[in-house]
């Protein structure tokens, strides 16, 4: 034991750190979600456009693609080329293509002018190529105010 003490002490700190992180995380989780499994919904299913064969070709929100959006959140700032969102995972910047479609909550086609700071939106788009991959919006759906 004596000859290994200099190995054991840092290891003990590591174990203590692991336990502290686990306990702290559990505490934060219970504070946020209570003793429920609400915070364990980690799956945002990747999809090939899931749709039942008997359904009309467009499902879900009126005008929205039949899949999970790549991002959703409140508009913090919007310009001609990008929109800054506040999402559950933190702030995100989404690129706006020239041909981005805007769908309003009632299913009607809108325009970029319909998007205002504070609106809740869902983004459907594609990731750009290259090292700094960014999400480029193809369809933006304005969601009903909560």
């Amino acid at each position, binding site marked *: 034991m004596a000859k290994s003490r200099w*190995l054991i002490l840092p290891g003990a700190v590591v174990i203590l750190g692991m336990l502290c992180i686990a306990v702290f995380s559990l505490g*934060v*989780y219970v504070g946020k979600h209570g003793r429920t499994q609400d*915070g364990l919904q980690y799956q*945002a299913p990747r999809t090939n456009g*899931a749709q039942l064969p008997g359904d009309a070709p467009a499902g879900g929100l009126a005008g929205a693609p039949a899949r999970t959006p790549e991002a959703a959140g409140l508009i913090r700032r919007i310009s001609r080329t990008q929109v800054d969102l506040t999402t*559950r*995972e933190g702030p995100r910047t989404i690129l706006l293509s020239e041909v981005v479609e805007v769908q309003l909550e009632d299913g009607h086609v809108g325009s970029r002018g319909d998007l205002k700071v504070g609106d809740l939106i869902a983004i459907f788009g594609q990731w750009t190529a290259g090292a700094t*991959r960014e*999400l480029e919006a193809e369809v933006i759906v304005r969601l009903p105010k909560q």
Partner: protein
Amino acid sequence: MVPPGIGPVASTLIRSKLRDMPKPTNRWTDRWIAAGLGFFALLVYLRTLTPSLSYLSPDGSELATVPAVLGLAHPPGYPLYTWLGFFFSRLLPIGDVAHRMNMMSAVLGALGVSALYLIVVRLLPAERVGLLWRRCAAALATLLFAFSLTFWSQAVIAEVYAPNIGLLGLTLLLLLRWERTRHLLDFSFFALVFGLSLGTHMSNLGFAPAMALFILLTMFAVRDAPDPGQKVPTVGRRAWELAAHVIIGAAAFGLGAAQFLWLPLRASTINDPLSIKIAPITLANLYQYTLGAFTQLRFAFPLGALPDRVVIYVYFLVQQYGLGGILLGVVGLGSLLVHRPRHFYLLVGMYLVNVWFFTQYRAFDLEVFFIPAHYLWAMLLAFGVVEVLRGIGWMASRVGVCLGTGCLSSGMRAGLAILILLPSLTPIHWNWEKNNLSDDTAINDFYANVWDRLPAYSALITPRGVFGYDAFYWQLVYDTRPDVLLPLLPSPNPSSASLADREVFGTTRTVSSKGGMFAPPADLTPTDSWSLPVLLGQQPEKQIGRREQLALYRFSKSPPPLTIRGASPAVATHSNFGPAVLVGADVSDQPIESGGVLEVSLYWSSRAPTPLRVTLRLGSQVLEQHEVGFGLLARYMREVGIGPGELIVDRCAVVIPSTVPPGRYTLTLSPQAGQSQAVLSSASASLGVVEVVDEMEAMEQWLRAAGSSSPAR
């Protein structure tokens, strides 16, 4: 046993080392036990193995196909997986190629299970409990891992995670072997296999710092000679030794990692819309395809989200080992640190890297990325079990009961050993139903009938990239129906001109502007095409993500015949379903081979344009669910109209799963759950009795549908 001429200190060290070293007979016994555990795991995996293609992994169909044709999988390419898969697909004379790839996961997963036992039994401290109890602890931890929820699920499908555990176990075994022998040759074997393991999962690279630390600690912190009889090396000699290890290790690792040179050679085979943008034909793209792949998924969460992510990981750990397993692992952490401090830094270092990296990884199939961490936790768990056994022995001695060597009869020892191993049966019982995919035949049943029904020289539109491989598999591996064009197979962006003069069918009618980059291009078919399902498959019971139901659509420019005048159905029902009345049905009255199709026509009289969804059942088994008019009714009424006296007709073929045993079954139609109470409380209709026969094995049917003379058969 101690060589003459050695000083008293060195002599003591060597004696203590000799005591710790496993005797050759013990080593062979442990190898046999490891082989037995691996074989047992393999038997269970084979019993629950997916027969062929599966949707349990998003990339499963691609990973079942690419090795057989020596193609290139999605980033980071998985060269070693591809090569191993090629040999399995060629050498195993069992089932179809997808089945053989599933078997590869089972075999290499079982190899990882055997390796786990050998690693653990070698590391458990001899001074704590006797050999039998160490073996029990090691076997218990090994079996708990082998039948843990997530690892087992990956050992029965074509995926990289179970083979990766095989490679990871082998890497650790070789590292521990080098630790024992300190031979440069053993070190080079370790480095080579470590380099090769990147070809089953690139994240293994993250284990390098912990391994390097362990190697340094072993070379510099261990004062005694590696083998009895060798001189204790001087500092200068250790430095030379280190230099030799660095050079040889780097060369061997480089040789293993050189497998990625395979990527540029096969870059022309990529057909995935994501991967094709970074086809590894330049050095920059090679980096993007391998180390630079999926950067948008890494460290994807802000600091505030990390507690939730840590809890998600803990939740996964509870799923594998239960709360008891977590507590034993925590005890094991302390035991490992005290008794094997260098190994603590190796194993816990590897574990922390895996957990740290993947808790911040944005993936929808997140649980599989933690399998290496679960593997390492099983080792900690074994240490915990040893400490508990030690504690029990101590408490027994306090009350005057001796449990030590020589105190118990061999029968009692065997009984106690069985008692210790009993908990390992729990996960087999609990996870069997979840991981038994042996009846997952839906995809093959569906496609066997698709190939049978597609007209000559037609075209079949599929999703792009990895989502299209459930169809690509057949043509790539078996050259099935070469007259049928799969436009998304050679390229993710085919021209609509390639479909000219062909009847067009599809397994999807969702286009890219609605279904993301994996859906076919929006302009491949005219936007005003009609798409009518002509073949409906059973939805696979177990799948990950949301996939379209298995259906074959026929695309046409003119409206399909959705209505009929003067129908006289063979089965008259006049059942009121609320928004529509089922007037009757025509059902084929010939016996049907399981795995074949049932032709059904349903005749509806609709009172209102309210959508109605119905479920068709064979006995108690759901065959398919659809909306009356197949979702085309509103457009049909708008553009064509329904005349007085005309009935709506839902006409299509429904796949009878090959898992349906022979017998006579009642065919019923009922409203689908999830609709209004008024609809749900309406009638169910009996459409007659269907006789199912079973004259041909499912695999035989699939291979006949594949209909190829390919060498892969």
